[in-house]
């Protein structure tokens, strides 16, 4: 099966709120998923990511804009005519059907003959590691097993695209990591264009080719995990993906910014004298014990790393030391120096 692309062009969906009047759940969202790509919609609850996904599936109809699957306009096409495999957060297995009947459902609807259905079902159950589970009832399975059945059911009829709506949020932490790796490897093996919705940034970074971060119905930034982490377009993205120190700095020159008396090397196009927002990841600042302008306020030992809270003038910084096993820890109250790595500082609205 050759993969197809998904395209959303200025899609909006609004609803009537009793207090706020007309509210946009999704506003002017334009996205493209290339053939065989996995795009994740990432954002806090209520950001419009699920609504966007459900509009691709056809469960909701956009008020404006168009949706294309494989180049065909499906904006007003019923969900059963779209050829989409959908994996639900709550699995949505049919409780009155066995595992076999659940997986066979789409094939039976298509009217395939019994022998070919049986063959396809056992193949796909093998693929998700549930061979010989055919006769089980959904309620006899664990959460992880149910999700595998849901996955098998969604891919067995060779849909054009695969959609996931927070598929792992009902699983415990360990299963979640396992399942997400399985989903990713299955998706790559089939080579199917996929949209994946989650609010978990780590999951998004682990599973995606590309991530679209959404907030308040709008796509704030799109890109791969690295670009979102190192070059967040907004303060929201910076805070939502990983941890971040966000500080105000004053532009001194095209290559220098001042924070609390420290002059740091940053490339910026802003004019000297302007104030800019800076993002500095906690692990990109190095502490040293030679007395400097910083003062340790708090130390938290977390095993693989040690977190410090460091006062720098009026600002408080989070700093993570991953080389903590090599040196004696800094004490609370101790004056320290801060070393900012070249390229570690990102100017949010500086481009």
């Amino acid at each position, binding site marked *: 099966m050759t993969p197809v692309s998904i395209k959303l062009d200025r899609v909006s969906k*609004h*609803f*009537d709120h009793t207090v706020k009047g007309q509210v946009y759940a999704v506003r002017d969202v334009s996205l493209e998923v290339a053939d065989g790509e996995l795009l994740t919609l990432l954002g806090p609850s209520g950001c419009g990511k699920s609504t966007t996904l459900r509009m691709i*599936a*056809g*469960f909701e*109809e956009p*008020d404006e804009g168009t949706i294309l699957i494989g180049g065909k306009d499906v904006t*007003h096409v*019923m*969900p*059963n005519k*779209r*050829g*989409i*495999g*959908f994996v*639900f*957060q*709550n699995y*949505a*297995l*049919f*409780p*009155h059907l066995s595992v076999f009947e659940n997986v066979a*459902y*789409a094939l039976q*609807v*298509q009217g395939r003959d019994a022998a070919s259905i049986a063959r396809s079902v056992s193949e796909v159950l093998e693929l998700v590691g549930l061979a010989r589970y055919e006769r089980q*009832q959904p309620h006899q399975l664990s959460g992880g097993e149910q999700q595998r059945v849901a996955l098998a*059911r*969604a891919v067995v*009829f060779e849909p054009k695209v695969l*959609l996931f709506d927070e598929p792992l949020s009902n699983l415990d932490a360990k299963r979640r990591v396992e399942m997400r790796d399985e989903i990713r490897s299955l998706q790559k093996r089939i080579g199917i264009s996929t949209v994946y919705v989650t609010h978990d940034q780590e999951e998004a970074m682990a599973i995606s080719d590309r991530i679209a971060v959404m907030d308040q119905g709008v796509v704030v930034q799109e890109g791969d995990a690295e670009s979102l982490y190192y070059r967040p377009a907004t303060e929201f993205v910076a805070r939502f993906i990983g941890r971040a120190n966000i500080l105000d700095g004053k532009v001194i020159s095209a290559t220098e910014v001042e924070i609390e008396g420290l002059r740091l090397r940053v490339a910026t196009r802003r004019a000297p004298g302007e104030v800019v927002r800076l993002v500095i990841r906690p692990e990109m600042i190095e502490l040293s014990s030679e007395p400097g302008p910083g003062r340790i306020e708090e130390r938290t030992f977390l095993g693989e790393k040690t977190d410090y809270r460091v006062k720098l003038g009026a600002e408080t910084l989070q700093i993570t030391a991953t080389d903590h096993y090599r040196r004696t820890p800094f004490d609370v109250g101790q004056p320290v120096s801060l070393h900012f790595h070249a390229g570690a500082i990102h100017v949010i609205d500086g481009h």
Partner: protein
Amino acid sequence: MAQAQSASWRRVAGDPALLGTIAAIWILLLLFVLFPLAHLLERTFVDENGLTLAPLLESVRDPGHQAAFVNSLILATAVGVWGTALGFLFALTAVRGGLGRHWLTVLDAAALLPLVSPPFTTSISIIFSFGPKGFITHDLLGLANASVYGFWSTCFAETLTYFPIAYLTLRPILAAIDPNLEEMALSLGGSRWRIFRTVTVPLAVPGFANAFLLLFAASLADFATPLILAGNAFPVLPTQAYLQITGLFDFKGGAVLSLILLLPAAAVFVAQRYWVGRRTYVTVTGKVGQRSRNRTMAPGVAALLCAACFAVAALIAYFYALLLIASLVVAFGANNSFTLHHYEVIFTEGLPAIRDTLVIAAIGMPLGGLYGVLVGYLIARRRFPGRRAMEIVAMINYALPGTIVGIAYLIAFNDPPLALTGGALIIVACYVFRYSPTGIRATVALLEQIDRSLEEASASLGAGTRETFRRVTLPLIAPAFFAGLGVVFIRSMTAISATIFLVSISWMLITVRILENMTEMALGPAAAFSVFVIVVVFAVVAGLSAVLARLRAPTGGTAARSFLGG
């Protein structure tokens, strides 16, 4: 808003199966709910000179009608109070009495028997017991010419007939009260009686109110019991309206009287839906909690409650035994020698009524079951313009007293273009639209527990609306479907208040024959008919329960309760 509206229109228009179903149901609702009601109102408020209140005012000024109105309210209030008390006694004993499973079954059976019996059974037994030749009044006490007719016997019979409604309402509420609450109160040093008064009863208050209103409405609408037992000294509205039409052929007078009945009935409906319906302190879920032996009831008290319940159960058993015996002797009280003559009678000259009733029930049952599931599904699951209106209109015939519905049908379908009176269709329609709402509500309740994502999953897997309904929704709401079947069947066998206006020479009903037998003092055949109806109803309910038990229903709930509805 306008855009959302147009979007929902577009969705409906793009789905011919859905559009067709909605249109068909609206046509049926217009024809069999709104059209008769409009005719009833027109007959009451319109004369040659246009709109008028004269017939209504005239009727209200009639001292006889005023008495009937007051009597109806007094009777309904008394039945509401006594029935709620009796239902609470049963519910408390079932939940807290520490009874074994078998004793609970006995209790349930005693409570359910009256609900699935034809309307006159208690009345017949009361006449057999307390009438002039009654087993108790005449044979045991030696009273001559004891009078059984009037308020007290009517109230007694209705309380026994309708208290199971209160039992079914209160039992889940009491069962859902977390024993921890009471145990906590106990640990705070309260006495058991104090806890009962200050914790248990207050938590059950919404249940009391609901039970009272349901009983009030049931008594208000009850036609059969007062017709037999109330006598001339205690007229009530439904019987007055009936006599106005059958005795005096005064359609207008009957229509006006039935509309007067509408007033308290509507008040109760509104109170129940908007006042009580939204106040519950305990959530009733499908989950059946463990019935741990609760230490908040003293053993002596529990024993006393059980004794009281089984006394009532014994009384009910006695009434039904009496009915059975009366059907098997020549003339109860006068000649007690065994005979099968009454059964011969009902299976020879009574055969047309039996055949007609069974035919009508057999036609109405699948139609009513399907209609209930379809409307329930549309209301709970589809978004379309006029959904709320459909929900309300579909409930109207269920909420109205049977007398009103019967008279409205009689007036509306008596003349062309829709001269349906005299046929079977009108009786079937009356049952379907009057008793399927139980199936509608059961479907809605069940669907609310079934996540919408199941249907979305089916759609994503390529199934259209109709296919999804057939493969996913229908199997999951099968319990509601069978409950709907059961209710329509039971009521087709036992109801009389509406359909007594609709029977004819060609289509007769068993219940109407029982009434005729009663008025001719042919009590033996009446008893035999009643026994026959009870046996058939039990057989069908048992069959449906067996089917239900085999279904892999995702949610629990007892079959018997769902058959009886609210």
